[in-house]
């Protein structure tokens, strides 16, 4: 019989000792999203606001389940508000860079 009475409970590995193992993508994307949102709002650039929306989506897709949903939602809401504000201030359609 290979069972043992000594059972060890699962201990989630501490990420402080191994920061390299953690995927930094969701954090970077979150930060980028916020920066682009602020640029879109302050400089009234529509393309910045759209990129911010994309960044927040990417951050959400790559996020860990243990991560705080509040931060994700706040980043998402900020990017949506950046898009809406850009269009309210200037309803003209976005012109392509070419």
């Amino acid at each position, binding site marked *: 019989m290979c069972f043992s009475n000594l059972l060890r409970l*699962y201990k*989630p590995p501490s990420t402080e000792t191994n920061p390299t193992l953690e995927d930094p993508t969701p954090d970077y994307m979150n930060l980028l999203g916020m920066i682009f949102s602020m640029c879109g709002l302050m400089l009234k650039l529509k393309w910045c606001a759209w990129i911010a929306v994309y960044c927040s989506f990417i951050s959400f*897709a*790559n*996020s860990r389940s243990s991560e705080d949903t509040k931060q994700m939602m706040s980043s998402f809401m900020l990017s949506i508000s950046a898009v809406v504000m850009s269009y309210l201030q200037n*309803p003209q359609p976005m012109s392509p860079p070419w």
Partner: protein
Amino acid sequence: MRSLRLFLIPTLLLLLALPVSRGRYNDDFDDGEDLADDNDFAEFEDMNDDPVAETETMPPPRVSFPSQVDDEEDEDEATVELEDGQDGFEDSETQDQDIFSKYDQEEFEGIGDMEKTIHSMKDPLIIHQVPAHLQNNWESYYMEILMVTGLLAYIMNYIIGKNKNSRLAHAWFNSHRELLESNFALVGDDGTSKEAVSTGKLNQENEHIYNLWCSGRVCCEGMLIQLKFLKRQDLLNVLARMMRPACDQVQIKVTLNDEDMDTFVFAVGTKKAMARLQKEMQDLSEFCGDKPKSGAKYGLPDSLAILSEMGEVTDGVMDNKMVHYITNHADKIESIHFSDQFSGPKIMQEEGQPLKLPETKKTLLFTFNVPGMGNTSPKDMDTLLPLMNMVIYSIDKVKKLRLNREGKQKADRNRARVEENFLKQTHAQRQEAAQTRREEKKRAEKERIMNEEDPERQRRLEEAAQRREQKKIEKKQMKMKQIKVKAM
């Protein structure tokens, strides 16, 4: 009526002859030609009191009337000239010039001005474009539509990718459940409950990483299985994988008790993986300094390489059954790493070396590639079952594997050497740390003395501290003397 008209026309012409000479063409009156075209005598019907205005409006009909007559001729001429490749517009200009040249210069003054006005009439009208947002035209918002379409595509890919990963994970678990439940008392634990109760399901860390903790088996403390799938839920990653294919991986980490494993470090896997691990892993870089050897010597495929602390370890691990397992599933094996000194990858510290040796744990690590190179189906998960059998076999094998006396001595020497090297490198730093600790102690004591309210006690504490200092200094002096005597 007809005769009346015939009489009126010459009289009008005579009347017009006078004003033409001193007439000024009013630039604001743009639709003079239009009016003239519709009704030559419209101005006379809507007679204003201002005769000057009338005279000013005279010239346009005067000009257009003959041009109308000439138009028919012009058309014929225009077509002719068009065949020659000239623009019709230019033709009318030249025609106008011809018209003016017909008029007697003595009778008519200011013809030149009229030329200018005719030309200015012919300046192109600038029609400003209506701003796009005022147009009822969705086509002008094509960039926005593109963006929204992109977002929808991302969301669709997220849902599809997440579901696929979930299906693959559950397919793996269903095929391995029986084997795991027959070997481990605890299968599945998410770390939240205080009691050791099997959850019996995978622990989802991410949309692409699933964990499973198994415990309760002889010869090992526990086993953590990580299903590291590709990020199918992230469209960017999917596009990146089109350039650089990658495959799903299953990582198994078995932690052993101290008595379950002898002291050795060993690894086998693909050549690329071995080269990478030798650089990255703390224990492999310290104990397996030689280059990875080809696995062909031990009956393994050429694509695999071996890193070992000593030859005896390789001979002990690579028995027939192990070789059989590895050879049959060589395409799925990325790396197998047995170590009693496992402490993870090398930690790059900013301030030189860490002061303490990193904590080590007796560990067996297995990394398997799921077949399919990204295009995995749930059926492919069944092909990983023999590899789980190999893992179970390895746990039992490592428990039984014991080095002989020579091997043990060599292993102990290696470990001592590594520790010594580490201590030498960190000597200076440890001295500094000790110095700072001593200074901290002194300061704390001084503070205690200062804070003492009772002056008598303060004096006594001070005296005691001074005596201790004195003793230390005397001790040091004695040591120095002894060293000098010895040297002599």
